[in-house]
């Protein structure tokens, strides 16, 4: 019964979305006050229906209702409760429903928080969101419906891929999708602005927080995915430039450019066309990414196995949404009149450079990901593009970005000079050069360079803060007072940029890892990375739906016991699959990493790593997201249009 209600709620949501789209756009076009006022209600209704639908699917999974095919294929009675819940979005149909749900949440939030928006703009934004939702929900209903049922129901389900039964991967999709789908709101704002034919500073003030929130979620989602690969897959790596990973990186790059570009629209009413294009582009990349990984075009182990027929539907949807918005852009963009003029050397100029560099990096990632299928289609050649290519091409583009990240905020608006930058940031450059130089003695050139860049970023990002608070140049009390008056966004930006530096340091550190692969019997001891590792025992450890072998390894430093690590190998009987549970001990400066492999003749193959600064990779991402979130707290971003004071009577 409940799955049927879920299916009905999904259909209802789709109908409401269509209504929202039509009424919103038409109402705004005709300036019909009642129609425009009706749109938020429809958006909230759509959200409630979607929530009910998602709830029904979760209920079916938790209550072991195997008459629902989706549950039978992906769940099992023995599956732990957490994964029964999170497993609803761990498959194609459920994840499409999740997409739709988050799109509905975005619409609901715009309705609730957008009461101060001009009604035409709000109606158009909701209309565009509704249209996108309608397409997606139609796709879900017709080709990827999670509520299809089968009778008689099987006694037990097929269980979920053991790799997915993991807390990290359970939460990776929702967080990632909140990022992907969140960019639908800036997209809707961009299309609404094109429909209206105007953009003003208030529009920038609206788009920036939405873009920032989505960006924060996307950063966390990508970091979570990378962290999961690190601790689950057991090869000590965290990013392979795999097509599916790249599909999440592309909108992140343009989303970063969007976050920065919208600042210029807000403050200077300039770069409007760039910003609109970036908003359309970011969401287009999210949508295309979703399409690509489900279509079977990309050759990746991560990709959902799907048949091309579904791909055709999504392609049509993409054609409408992306093609439509880009056509609108081509026709209406000239109407967006820019306000401020600026010199090439200025903060606006630096942000244009930022846009160009980030978009170039995005173009490189797109090229690397799409070349294999295109080469096959156009030339019949079978090639593949992997990490060596990306490392070669992204690095030269990233270096100017790093340089600009620290000194860009120091430039004034409209017109500036380069010399003051040197004046204000020379000390950071000096420290960075020192760090790089010192490192170069102990390691290869590339990691040393990376450490120098990291130092530059971490210290240099605060250059603007130091300038504004006149740190070390005015009495401390003055500096403190200035610091208290500093706009929170300035601090947020500094923290976010420094976070990037932390990540770069983590990447550099991890490239210097020491590792050893050994065949050990109980009692053997090894020296890896300056630590002593002793295998104390190999035992059996059964789990809820698997059998496991556990190795007990003690790690000592200079004779002092430091940690007891217990890597496992889990054999999932139902799916006939084995996964490894890596044991990681971290002190936030280095990771001890142990993997248990095959056992042969009483000896176990162990892989032991010491990864310096590995935790900084994800810590840096967290810091970036925190900086972004802090910026949101800036009072200036609170989007309330000031309420009109009652007009005093004019003097006669």
């Amino acid at each position, binding site marked *: 019964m409940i799955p049927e209600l879920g299916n009905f709620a999904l259909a209802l949501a789709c109908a409401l979305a269509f209504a929202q789209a039509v009424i919103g756009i038409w109402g705004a076009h005709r300036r019909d006050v009642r129609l425009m006022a009706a749109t938020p209600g429809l958006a909230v209704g759509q959200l409630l229906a979607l929530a009910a639908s998602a709830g029904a699917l979760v209920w079916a999974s938790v209550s072991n209702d195997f008459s629902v095919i989706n549950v039978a294929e992906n769940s099992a009675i023995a599956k732990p409760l957490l994964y029964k819940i999170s497993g609803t979005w761990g498959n194609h149909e459920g994840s499409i429903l999740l997409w739709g749900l988050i799109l509905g949440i975005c619409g609901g939030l715009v309705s609730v928080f957008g009461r101060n928006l001009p009604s035409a703009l709000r109606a158009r934004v909701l209309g565009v969101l509704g249209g996108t939702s309608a397409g997606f929900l139609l796709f879900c209903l017709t080709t990827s419906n999670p509520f299809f049922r089968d009778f008689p129901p099987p006694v037990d389900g097929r269980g979920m891929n053991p790799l997915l039964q993991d807390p990290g991967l359970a939460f990776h999709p929702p967080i990632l999708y909140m990022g992907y789908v969140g960019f639908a709101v800036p997209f809707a704002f961009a299309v609404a602005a094109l429909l209206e034919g105007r953009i003003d500073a208030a529009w920038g003030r609206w788009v920036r927080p939405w873009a920032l929130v989505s960006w924060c979620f996307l950063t966390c989602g990508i970091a979570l995915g990378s962290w999961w690969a690190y601790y689950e897959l057991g090869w000590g790596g965290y990013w392979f430039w795999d097509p599916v990973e790249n599909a999440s990186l592309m909108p992140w790059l343009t989303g970063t450019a969007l976050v920065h570009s919208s600042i210029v629209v807000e403050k200077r009413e300039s770069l409007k066309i760039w910003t609109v294009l970036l908003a359309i582009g970011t969401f287009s990349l999210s949508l295309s990414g979703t399409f690509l990984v489900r279509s079977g*075009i990309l050759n990746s182990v991560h990709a959902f196995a799907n048949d091309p027929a579904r791909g055709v539907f999504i392609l049509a949807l993409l054609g409408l949404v992306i093609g439509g918005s*880009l056509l609108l852009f*081509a026709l209406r963009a000239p109407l967006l009149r820019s306000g401020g003029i600026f010199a090439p050397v200025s903060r606006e100029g630096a942000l244009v450079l930022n846009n160009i560099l980030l978009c170039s990096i995005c173009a490189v990632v797109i090229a690397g990901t799409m070349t294999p*299928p295109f080469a096959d289609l156009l030339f019949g050649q079978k090639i593949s593009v992997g990490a060596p290519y990306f490392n070669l091409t992204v690095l030269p583009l990233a270096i100017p970005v790093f340089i600009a990240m620290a000194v860009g905020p120091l430039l004034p608006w409209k017109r500036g000079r380069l010399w003051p930058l040197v004046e204000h940031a020379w000390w950071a450059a000096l420290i960075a050069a020192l760090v790089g130089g010192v490192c170069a003695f102990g390691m290869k050139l590339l990691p040393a360079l990376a450490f120098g860049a990291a130092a530059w970023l971490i210290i240099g990002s605060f250059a603007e803060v130091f300038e504004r608070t006149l740190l070390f140049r005015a009495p401390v009390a003055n500096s403190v007072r200035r610091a208290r008056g500093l706009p929170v966004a300035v601090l947020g930006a500094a923290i976010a940029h420094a976070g990037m530096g932390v990540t770069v340091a983590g990447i550099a550190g991890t490239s210097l890892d020491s590792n050893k692969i050994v065949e050990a019997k109980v009692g053997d001891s090894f020296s890896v990375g300056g630590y002593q590792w002793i295998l104390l025992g190999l035992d059996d450890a059964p789990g809820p739906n698997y059998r496991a072998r556990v190795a007990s390894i003690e790690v000592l430093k200079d004779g002092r016991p430091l940690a007891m690590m217990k890597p496992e190998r889990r054999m999932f009987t139902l799916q006939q699959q084995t996964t490894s549970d890596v044991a990681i001990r971290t002190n936030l400066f280095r990771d001890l990493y142990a993997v248990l492999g095959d056992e042969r003749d009483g000896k176990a193959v162990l892989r032991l790593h010491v990864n310096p600064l590995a935790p900084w990779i994800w810590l840096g991402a967290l810091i970036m997201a925190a900086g972004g979130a802090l910026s949101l707290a800036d009072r200036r971003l609170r989007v309330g249009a000031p309420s009109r004071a009652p007009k005093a009577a004019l003097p006669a």
Partner: protein
Amino acid sequence: MIARRRLMLLAPLAVAAAGGAAFWAMLTRMQDGKFDPHDIGNPMLGKHIPDFDLPGVAPSQGFSSKELIAAAQTQPILLNFFASWCIPCASEAGTLDELQKLGGVPIWGIAYKDAPEKSAKFLDQYGNPYARIGADMSGDVFINFGLYGVPENFVINRKGIIAWHIAGPLSDDLVEQQMMPAIAKAKA
């Protein structure tokens, strides 16, 4: 200046449209089977087979590449790589059996990394359509032929050239629609 601007504004749409057209072409061809991103191809196709000399698997004696080419002089030979631990190999056993009964295409097999008893058991269970079977214990022949999994099937013509290849098990449809035409061409 206006024209240049307009052109620039159309550029994103043009790029997206080109991409969309390409994806549509890929999807439709995937449905027709003319485009398969997962098929990584085999550069040995159209080239001479590598040299090898393999011991036999009971009940058959092994063979060398020279013997294979000699036997291919009369008609093209189907070379099938299999293993006892491989599930799709079991599923294609039926097709291979049929093929052998029909006659016309001799089937020679290479067992990849299989203990001889295990291969023998596999042949007992699923039938033995092979005229000759070689045992590739080290996996060198597997690599030299450019395989990356089992089963894979090759058609060798009288010049010792690989005339056709499929990285996967044979099915009745595949035999009818792809292998037989390839063999006919190889005979010509």
